[in-house]
């Protein structure tokens, strides 16, 4: 179970940012880490996402929720350039990510996890994390083949860093296990560790609590906040588990049919008639 009473925590005060968006007040002195302006994409005749506007503060835990098929993962795919947007701009730390590929977006500071877990199943847990460290602890192909001193030094540092990251989620003992053979919950946690290894400024988590029981979810909530506090990064998550969302998210964006239907604090969202209608349907008259 979580060791913090999430329901009763003080609400973060949100303030306006020039582009009709809100971020936590404490982040106002720095620019938002991510700003999406009028983001949209069409697949042939189908508009999957339309006029998506959002800003995320530098240390904000933001939530993206909505019914199934609302376009949430599509928005993640747009931000990480798995799909190129048809309309709109994405500013990462003020920089336009216009022609970036997924790889460049990661180098610029966005890391993500996937709805259907995408681990490197045949490799060990430690190797999965080390791949996350690929762009940070470097040596060339020939240093590796000839086993130059650079190789030994870098591998030692990589090993230590990987174990450090794994210990955040209490997974050091799993280091030599094959990633594909881990239990489901451990695989999800490993994906998060791998994403963290890439040293991002913004972490996108796609349904991190899927398939977890309440006790695991509570631990996950603690861990996400711990990650944010330790690394001072922003987190945006897609989730269906409302306890988690309302518990740790500071700003929430609700989408349905590819459009934003509400934005604000958890309390505002819970009381929004549009959100209630989207999830529960309209109240019958009379």
């Amino acid at each position, binding site marked *: 179970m979580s060791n913090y009473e999430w329901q009763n925590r003080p609400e973060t005060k949100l303030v306006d940012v020039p582009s009709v968006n809100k971020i936590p007040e404490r982040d106002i002195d720095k620019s938002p880490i991510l700003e999406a302006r009028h983001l949209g994409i069409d697949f042939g005749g189908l508009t999957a996402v339309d006029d998506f506007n959002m800003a995320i503060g530098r240390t904000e835990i933001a939530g993206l929720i909505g019914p199934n098929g609302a376009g949430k993962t599509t928005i993640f795919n747009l931000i990480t350039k798995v799909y190129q947007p048809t309309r709109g701009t994405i500013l990462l730390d003020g920089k336009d990510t216009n022609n970036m590929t997924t790889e460049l977006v990661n180098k610029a500071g966005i890391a993500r996890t996937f709805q259907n877990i995408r681990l490197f199943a045949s490799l060990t847990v430690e190797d999965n994390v*080390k791949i996350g460290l690929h762009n940070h602890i470097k040596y060339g192909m020939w240093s590796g*083949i000839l086993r130059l001193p650079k190789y030994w030094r870098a591998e030692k540092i990589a090993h230590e860093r990987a174990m450090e990251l794994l210990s955040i989620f209490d997974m050091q003992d799993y280091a030599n296990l094959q990633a594909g053979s881990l239990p489901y919950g451990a695989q999800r946690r490993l994906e998060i560790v791998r994403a963290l290894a890439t040293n991002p400024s913004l972490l996108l988590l796609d349904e991190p609590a899927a398939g977890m029981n309440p006790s695991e979810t509570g631990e996950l909530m603690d861990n996400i906040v711990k990650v944010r506090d330790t690394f001072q990064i922003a987190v945006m998550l897609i989730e269906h588990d409302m306890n988690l969302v309302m518990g740790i998210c500071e700003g929430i964006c609700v989408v349905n049919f590819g459009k934003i239907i509400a934005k604000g604090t958890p309390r505002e969202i819970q009381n929004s008639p549009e959100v209630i209608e989207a999830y529960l349907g309209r109240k019958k008259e009379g």
Partner: protein
Amino acid sequence: MKTMKKSTTANILCYGIIIVFFVVIQAMLSSGSIGTQLKGLLVPVCCYIVMAISLNLTVGVLGELSLGHAGFMSVGAFVGAIVCTCLETVIPLGPARLAIGMIIGALFAGLAGFLIGIPVLRLKGDYLAIVTLAFGEIIKNLALCLYVGLDGNGLHFGFLSSIRALGMEEGARTIVDGPVGLQGITKISTFTSGIVLILITLLIVLNLVNSRSGRAIMALRDNRIAAESVGIPVTKYKLMAFVTSAAIAGAAGCLYAMNYSTVVATKFDFNASILVLVFVVLGGLGNMWGSIIATGLLYVLPEILRQFNSDIQKYRMLIYAIVLILVMLATNNKAIRGFFSKMKDAISRTASGRRKSKGGEQGE
């Protein structure tokens, strides 16, 4: 949950096994206990082992099916043979000349791999396989139309014509004679050089796989989209694997060519590519030691069958085909797989059981 051992000590042990094997074979050679037919296979089997290891890098480690690997062998063979022939007067020492030939052959094969890889590696699965097959056939076709000769004025190249059209002096030396292939090669390949090439190849490939670049390549195999999302440049590492694989095949090609006085380009056709692929798959994708053992056994098998009475001799290729099919059926049969994994679990349980008996800990 599966544990995976770090295999550095295992690797060193296996290099040792190869060296021991080499010493044994040398002893048998000098005592005359190896028949001429088997003796003639020693260098080719080394070439095919190196081909299998290099193809395993593309198919097993990178995870892309390549059906034109023999094309790179071909490039290395022709370039290497030309270089060795030209250097005959300059470097009289055989092994040194062979080494230079192999290096230059590898460079050209690697270049071919690079040029082919850039367009090809964008394609998916079966389409990539077909295009590699196409390139292999193109290289074979081009080699069949090549004319190269050496005379006092230097090296002459011709295409689609004839040796006479090269306009060389009297007493010039024909190196490549169109469809007839490489001619008049001074044989400088030895079993020792074959073993050395195998050891060097293993060193390169195993060290590459167990390094940062190797991890990136395997990440691409396991999940390309996830690899991109953690910042791995896809084209760079695909090319790295493909080009390294091609270069090593080129070195093997040179070794192969310098083992015969004539070599026709049709030796390096689709059937040769398929043969190497069979060795790689049977030995286990990604398993370099498996490639060595599978190639060694299967390449030599038809020759061993030849030793039996002449009745069976007739059927040896048929037996080979049947053995291949049966092995594939057996290794992919769920019942047999289940049996083997139960055995593996039982063995590891008894091993760990013995270790833990002192500590009195609960088993996993």
